[in-house]
């Protein structure tokens, strides 16, 4: 039936008010998992876009939303091609299925700032094909030439007549769908490149956004785990007699990572946990002190040649012919992620399988890991993903998910495991500590001619392999074989092959005739993981501080020196924009100085200028001016927000971040001793976007790498003190 434009407004209003949000379950019955829970006639395209007979448009979000904005950004791509406002599209978190694989990494996961980069064209194509197929169906059903029809605002239009999309879904589902329909041309964009209110913002300001800690499992038992004080320690024996007498206690038992205390309510479990007396068997890490690491790594660098990670020209040999030489050593410690939402997961194990309610960056690894733990078919694990209260790489790890399932196995009904902040800080996959020694040579014209770096520290990949290998192997692989493979793989990385995340960002951005990068692995055995911007998070600091040292050595302005050496025009332009907007070289208020840094990570270019003063030995950051080139911008406001977030995350690390391990125990425990930047220390941030027509890249991580160096370089300008160790300590 035809409807006028005015009717259309009424219809959308009424559907909005009666629509009930429900997350589709990963059903084992449906061949396409996105079909689950969506009854009646609908038209499905590629498992990403669905149009129902009520004309609702559903978008199955292949990535997880942890603040970076994909819930809105990827929906914007669908909106553009269907010519409908973003907030008219209902977004669902995807179940685990290969349809939703991360194209860059071949597994279903959210990492590497890859979501927009990966999905920009494929998702638009899926939506464009949906639109074309619906138009084709409408033309057939109405017997009107397709050229006379358009699709807009959830309707098929014929002149001023509007037919709801739902009228055509039954036909669309039967006919052959259109493939490769033309995309909206860039100059016609209505939604891409424009600011709009995030489609998850309303839920997040009203407290209705559902994180996994909020999973609606009213009858769930609540659990805590007592973890070993020494990392990798194991339970020898324990006495829970007194603890079990406490109100509400359901059970207390040992699991592989500690002792689980299960109660009716979380506070009861916490209280009883304090009464459990435990004997721990410590691990080999009981002899480890992280304070000794800088000396150990320095001696490794002094005595070992390591593995080649990169060499161009004559490499380090070219130092011999340089007219001036300079060398410096930098260090960054272990760091925890400290996501605002502590690790938590709910699970229920029944005879027919397992359900898991969690917020995970790697749902596929998690699901497969759970199946392996329970020794059941993967498709019997139903995985419910949620909004994530901060990921930053922490929720790539699946340890807490396996813990919850191990507990649920022994408990009747669903159980929710909630880690304390102390558990979170002390049981992380830490950013690896890292030491680098730079050596540089400058020729008679003041040009950098030789650049050599030796990096020493542990690698991340061996730790991830333990979780990834069983998850990536075919289902029937015996678990003994998969853990053997994971072990061998880890050894190969450590001994034979320089892992890219250990050296990335140390050497790529500058044009130098002779470069050499070497990696020397030393791993004390503390678990490492991906931390926002991964290797770049410290490489950006190391490289950009050292480049500043060379600029100083050659008596050149830090901006001019960089511009003369940057390897790519996009790096140069980004640097120019940031310095121009910051007023580089112009007079600042008394006592204020500028510092600059530029860094490319994950295909995105970022430059930052910090304005700060040093007062009584304290760094006060007044302002950060940031320029970013991420190609075509899908949502300028979200790009700016990610730059702000990356900068503030990086300032926390630069000023406070350190995880210290004493005799195998993590010293830090909560926000009083693992400090976070607070609002009163937060500078003004001014973000500028480089205009671009090239393919978009991600922004979740690249805002972070330059900031520590920009601060350190400004401190040098203010005080003459070169800060070569994180976190910054001016009295050292």
């Amino acid at each position, binding site marked *: 039936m035809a409807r006028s434009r005015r009717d259309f407004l009424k219809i959308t209003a009424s559907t909005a008010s009666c629509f009930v949000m429900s997350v589709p379950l990963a059903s084992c019955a449906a061949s396409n998992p996105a079909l689950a829970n969506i009854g009646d006639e609908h038209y499905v395209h590629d498992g990403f876009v669905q149009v129902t007979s009520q004309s609702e448009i559903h978008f199955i979000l292949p990535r997880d939303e*942890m603040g970076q904005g994909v819930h809105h950004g990827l929906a914007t791509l669908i909106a553009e091609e269907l010519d409908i406002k973003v907030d008219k599209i209902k977004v669902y978190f995807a179940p685990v299925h290969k349809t939703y694989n991360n194209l860059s990494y071949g597994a279903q996961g959210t990492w590497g700032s890859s979501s927009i980069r990966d999905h920009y064209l494929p998702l638009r194509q899926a939506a464009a094909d949906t639109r074309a197929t619906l138009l084709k169906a409408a033309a057939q059903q109405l017997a009107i030439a397709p050229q006379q029809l358009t699709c807009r605002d959830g309707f098929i239009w014929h002149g001023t007549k509007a037919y709801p999309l739902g009228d055509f879904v039954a036909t669309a589902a039967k006919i052959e769908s259109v493939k490769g329909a033309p995309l909206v041309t860039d100059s016609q964009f209505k939604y891409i490149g424009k600011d709009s209110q995030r489609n998850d913002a309303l839920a997040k300001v009203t407290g209705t956004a559902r994180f996994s800690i909020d999973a609606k499992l009213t009858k769930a038992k609540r659990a805590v785990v007592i973890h070993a004080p020494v990392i990798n320690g194991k339970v020898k024996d324990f006495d829970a007699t007194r603890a079990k007498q406490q109100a509400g206690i359901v059970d207390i038992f040992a699991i592989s990572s500690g002792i689980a205390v299960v109660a009716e309510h979380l506070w009861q479990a916490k209280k009883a946990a304090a009464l459990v007396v435990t004997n721990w068997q410590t691990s080999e890490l009981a002899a480890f002190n992280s304070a000794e690491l800088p000396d150990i790594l320095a001696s490794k660098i002094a005595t070992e040649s390591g593995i080649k990670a990169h060499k161009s020209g004559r490499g380090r040999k070219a130092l011999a012919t340089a007219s001036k030489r300079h060398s410096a050593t930098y260090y960054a410690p272990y760091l925890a992620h400290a996501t*605002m*939402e*502590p690790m938590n997961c709910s699970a229920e194990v029944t005879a027919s399988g397992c359900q898991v309610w969690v917020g995970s960056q790697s749902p596929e690894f998690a699901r497969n890991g759970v199946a392996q733990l329970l020794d059941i078919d993967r498709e019997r694990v139903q995985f419910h993903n949620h909004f*994530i209260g901060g990921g930053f790489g922490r929720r790539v790890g699946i340890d807490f998910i396996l813990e919850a399932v191990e507990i649920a196995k022994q408990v009747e009904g669903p159980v929710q495991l909630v880690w304390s902040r102390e558990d979170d800080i002390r049981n992380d996959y830490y950013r690896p500590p890292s030491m680098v020694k730079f050596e540089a040579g400058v020729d008679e014209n003041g040009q950098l001619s030789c650049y050599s770096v030796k990096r020493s520290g542990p690698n991340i990949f061996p730790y991830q392999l333990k979780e990834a290998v069983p998850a990536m192997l075919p289902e029937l692989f015996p678990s003994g074989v998969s853990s053997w493979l994971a072990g061998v793989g880890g050894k190969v990385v450590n001994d034979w092959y320089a892992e890219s995340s250990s050296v990335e960002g140390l050497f790529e951005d500058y044009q130098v005739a002779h470069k050499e990068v070497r990696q020397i692995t030393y791993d004390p055995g503390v678990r490492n993981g991906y931390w926002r911007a991964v290797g770049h998070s410290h490489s950006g600091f190391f490289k950009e501080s050292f480049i500043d040292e060379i600029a100083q050595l050659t008596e050149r302005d830090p901006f001019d020196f960089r511009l003369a050496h940057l390897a790519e025009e996009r790096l140069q332009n980004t640097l120019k924009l940031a310095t121009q907007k910051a007023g580089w070289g112009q007079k600042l208020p008394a006592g204020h100085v500028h510092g600059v840094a530029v860094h490319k990570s994950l295909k995105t270019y970022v430059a930052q200028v910090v304005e700060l003063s040093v007062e009584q030995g304290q760094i006060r950051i007044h302002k950060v001016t940031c320029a970013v080139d991420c190609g075509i911008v899908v949502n300028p406001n979200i790009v700016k927000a990610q730059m702000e*977030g990356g900068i503030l995350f990086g300032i926390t690390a630069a000023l406070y971040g350190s995880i210290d391990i004493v005799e195998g125990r993590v010293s830090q425990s909560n*926000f009083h001793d693992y400090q976070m930047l607070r*609002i009163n220390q937060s500078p003004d941030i001014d973000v500028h976007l480089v205009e671009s027509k090239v393919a978009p890249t991600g922004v979740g991580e690249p805002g972070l790498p330059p900031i520590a160096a920009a601060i350190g370089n400004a401190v040098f300008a203010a005080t003459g003190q070169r800060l070569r160790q994180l976190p910054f300590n001016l009295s050292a």
Partner: protein
Amino acid sequence: MIKFWLNQQPVELDVSPDAPLLWVVREMLQLTGSKFGCGMGLCGACTMHLDGAAVRTCVLPVSAAQGRQVTTIEGLSSGQQLHPVQQAWLDENVPQCGYCQPGQIMSATALLANNTKPNDQEIDAAMQGNICRCGTYPRIKRAIKRAASSQQTVSFYDPEQEQS
């Protein structure tokens, strides 16, 4: 028996008096908008209003609420009408992951209830107990100022003048 008012509804609970208000509200009363972040009063994720004042409920025994008014993020808006602070949060696109935001908003509304035009120092003082790991502080500052000015407009709005 502990009795108090939760978002203007009377509640009566048989619960241990030392149970933290946060968990009682989340687990027994099913309002999960208030979050857990640290359990030590250090992050503000659990902030609710107790008789209008912002309190950290992860360290507040439920007995402290006896006979008093407790407001959570769920009780801030009236019906479909958002609180001006929530609206300002939307206008500035504040939330990223969103996990800290209920606590931030509860602290901001308590501030603005007592001080309709806070300056930068006053905003810092009222908000520095709330951590945002995603780094939304610049937007929080802007949103508070925006809400402050919109509240002013509302309170000085004079329909007579409008008609003339």
